[in-house]
């Protein structure tokens, strides 16, 4: 490690008993994944603490441990100096910790007022009294959403404010926010930040602010902790940090020496296989054009919610409201999914259980789902023999670990189920593969198999567009990388000329220039 790993006690202890201390916490899941290793975190009273880390660094796990949703495998939590056992979500809530996940847990069909006092709605709903309480509450954090509006009608930023109000009404002294600004416009962000600062100053409420937006972290917080691969690699005051330093801390040194793509460059004479022209979908995709040539793998780099999955869906025709043209081998294809499938597009969706597989079905019926007609006698009567043969072939080719092709896919592990999703497309006529997080939730061995499969697609002259939260993976498999933010392609890099740090910076909304590069 190049950077000095700042010892935790280097920041002078402001007080003897901090509000919350996480001491040596580890988390190992039953499947063997180690999400956190010996993590320390100290939240002082009245501080705003930033928590950053790349995708999968362990932020969510740490959040869930603080919220009582996960039990730590080792280590302890101290609340105001006292050891606590927070094994249920009710315990930290009673102590005064409010956790706000990305998905805001409000009841959309109830009014703002009813939501704010949801926890107190035992007994009669005494509107007048609650109204007075609500006004007092809003006074405290300096913003007053219309108490009678239905939460479902509010913009996302205002919902976040309602959630803060709810936390305050429940008497929270520590409010943990996971990506609260992910879908917010700048004005909403400022609204939230003003409320947070005000509460901190007037009442000494503490906050944990977890975000992919590093500029916001630097703007809002007093202290920052950085998680990388489940370890807390840095904790220190924000004013000593710069964006570059933060990115370096998140990525770590080992990755800058990472081996670059093993993909051969695309032959200059290679023809475009897939062309997407001016795709637009209200609120999701904003004027995206992508050309993929034969043998080319394009990586879409972006943060969660950046619109990267939506772009793949738009190309595949799965978004009904999308406008724009898609051409395959130079020929424009129709808008519907079935037309695009017939033209040679294939999508491996992000959520394989919800979008990729029919859970109760066996491997063989899932494998042949897109192609069943071609395997049928007279295009009408499915030929089970041919289907079994194809499924057997897929199981052997993709090294699916299963007792037989009649095993239901719901009984397979994540990696094996994902291979079945791939199997749906590899024996048909697909020439353009759209892969959305193909290695998510997949073990290391299966991951290598899948990446090799992707390289195979390209070597066979197909076009591939791949989305992955792991930029390292994109760099290893793609020749060209497009950075996506807010449903737009904001930068393009050759995989050879970029690294994880730059992609992270670009995806997080930091200018490339600030990193000493030119776009």
């Amino acid at each position, binding site marked *: 490690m190049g950077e000095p790993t700042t010892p935790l006690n280097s920041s002078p202890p402001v007080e003897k008993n901090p509000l919350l201390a996480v001491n040596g916490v580890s988390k190992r899941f039953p499947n063997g994944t180690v999400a956190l290793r010996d993590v320390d975190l100290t939240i002082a009273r009245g501080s705003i603490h930033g928590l950053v880390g790349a995708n999968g660094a362990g932020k969510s796990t740490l959040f869930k441990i603080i919220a009582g949703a996960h039990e730590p495998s080792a280590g302890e939590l101290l609340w105001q100096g006292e050891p606590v056992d927070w094994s249920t979500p009710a315990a930290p809530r009673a102590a005064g910790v409010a956790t706000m996940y990305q998905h805001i847990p409000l009841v959309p069909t109830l009014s703002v007022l009813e939501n704010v006092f949801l926890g107190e709605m035992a007994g009669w709903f005494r509107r007048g009294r609650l109204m007075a309480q609500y006004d007092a509450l809003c006074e405290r954090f300096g913003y007053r959403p219309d108490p009678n509006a239905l939460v479902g009608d509010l913009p996302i930023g205002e919902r976040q404010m309602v959630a803060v109000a709810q936390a305050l009404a429940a008497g929270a002294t520590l409010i943990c926010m996971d990506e609260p600004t992910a879908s917010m416009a700048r004005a909403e962000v400022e609204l939230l930040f003003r409320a947070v600062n005000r509460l901190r100053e007037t009442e000494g409420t503490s906050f944990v602010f977890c975000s992919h937006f590093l500029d916001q972290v630097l703007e809002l917080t007093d202290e920052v902790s950085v998680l990388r691969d489940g370890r807390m690699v840095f904790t220190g005051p924000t004013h000593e940090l710069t964006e570059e330093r933060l990115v370096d801390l998140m990525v770590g040194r080992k990755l800058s020496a990472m081996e670059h793509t093993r993909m051969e460059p695309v032959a200059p004479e290679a023809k475009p296989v897939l062309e997407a022209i001016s795709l637009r979908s209200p609120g999701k995709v904003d004027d995206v054009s992508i050309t993929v040539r034969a043998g080319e793998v394009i990586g879409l780099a972006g943060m969660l919610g950046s619109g990267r999955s939506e772009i793949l869906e738009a190309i595949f025709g799965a978004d009904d409201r999308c406008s724009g043209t898609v051409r395959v081998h130079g020929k424009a294809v129709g808008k519907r*999914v079935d037309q695009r499938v017939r033209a040679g597009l294939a999508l491996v969706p992000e959520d394989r259980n919800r979008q990729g597989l029919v859970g109760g079905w066996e491997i063989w019926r899932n494998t042949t789902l897109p192609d069943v007609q071609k395997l049928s006698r007279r295009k009408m009567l499915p030929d089970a023999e041919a289907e079994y043969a194809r499924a057997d072939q897929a199981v052997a080719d993709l090294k699916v670990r299963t007792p037989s092709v009649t095993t239901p896919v719901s009984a397979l592990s994540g990696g094996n189920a994902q291979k079945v999703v791939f199997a749906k497309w590899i024996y048909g006529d697909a020439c353009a593969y759209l892969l959305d997080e193909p290695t998510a939730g997949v073990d290391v061995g299966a991951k290598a198999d899948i990446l090799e499969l992707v390289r195979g697609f390209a070597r066979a002259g197909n076009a591939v567009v791949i989305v992955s939260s792991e930029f390292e993976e994109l760099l290893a498999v793609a020749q060209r990388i497009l950075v996506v933010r807010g449903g737009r392609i904001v930068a393009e890099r050759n995989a050879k000329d970029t690294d994880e740090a730059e992609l992270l910076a670009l995806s997080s909304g930091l200018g490339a220039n600030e990193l000493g590069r030119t776009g």
Partner: protein
Amino acid sequence: MSTPSTRERLAPFRLQRAGVVYAFALILVVFTSAAAGTGRPFYLSALNSANILDQTAQVGILAVFMTICLISGNFDLSIGATGALAAGVTLTVINSGAGVLVALLLGLLTGIAMGLFNGVFVQYVGVNAFIVTLGTMTGIRGLLFILTDGRSIQTTDTGLAELLTGDWPVNLKVWAAVVGLVFVAVGVVSLRRERAGRVTDGQGYWYVIAGALLAAVSVIWFPTYWALSKQVWIFLAIVVIAWAVLKFTVVGRRLYAVGGNVEAARLSGIRVARYKVMPFVLNGLFAALVGILYASRFSAINPQALTGIELTVLAAAILGGTSLFGGAGNVLKSVIGALILFVLANGFGVLNLGANYQDLIKGVVIIGAATIYVLAEKRGGRKKLTASDVPAVTPSASISGPAEASGGPVVTGESDAGARAGSGSAARP
């Protein structure tokens, strides 16, 4: 890859899969012995069995298409009203002097139109199927009241009755034996396929056993004269066709896929909307047919006719193990479910067991059946490849291991190895 284990072979016989068949057999045995024990005529006589089938036919036809609708992940409450309206239209047209066939056609078209309305509203507008068909159930009944001004429509024209009522008797002894032997033949063929290393769901056993039983029983037992009504023949033909389409065609496969996971089906290139709308249209069409069959019996239709039949039909589908969430169901089992309901009704009548208890028993049977399915699902459905399966996994994996390593296909037939090498190489250069 591997020959089916005994457990896989026996799967179709398990309570969870075949419970409705056992229940049906049990009820028949109980009624037959009760009839014998109380000195009444043979319960399953030619007369009474033809009677039961005739009583079941209308609900049975509807149960077939309700099952299809449920498999697709939807729901249709409007069938009773649609049937009554179609009958009203048919009789009105007949009374206006047009021919019976024209009237029949218009009646059926009415049904198609109602089904299409349901389907389009559910699929393209996105209103929940329960709500849409609850609305059309009421609204279509309202149309019928407007058409008839609240009175029954009668016709003196006997054309419709001549066309649709009456019997087509059959020599059951001969035909049942023939059907039984055909079943045995089908079963033997599918079992031989299994022996050849193919995995099937073991239904071959069903065919052989059922066919042999039928052939044997028919020779010693069945009457030579069995007076089946025309609507029973229509019913049987529909059941056979619907079953075959669902089981053996691409359409059936895709229907189950759409019901099982609509998003996966859509992203696999299936035109989901078709498979969502089509069941409603079929439901409308065959509800109309049932309505007309009903009216042909009386040469009249009462605007309140067929009220509540949709619930009996749903009960039949549920008895048959059809999932209310889509993706699972079998028309044969739903038909057996319908038969159970009507055997209960018939048995209570014939045996004079106190008609007052009938509905209570039906209710108990419905909940009991659903309970068995749920409990069996909980015990058997949660199987992951863990613990008890691991010993079974490891040997087969080790058997296929060397074959995989050598790059050759495993057991699965060298016959198409060439074709596969071609397709395989495109994907894995």
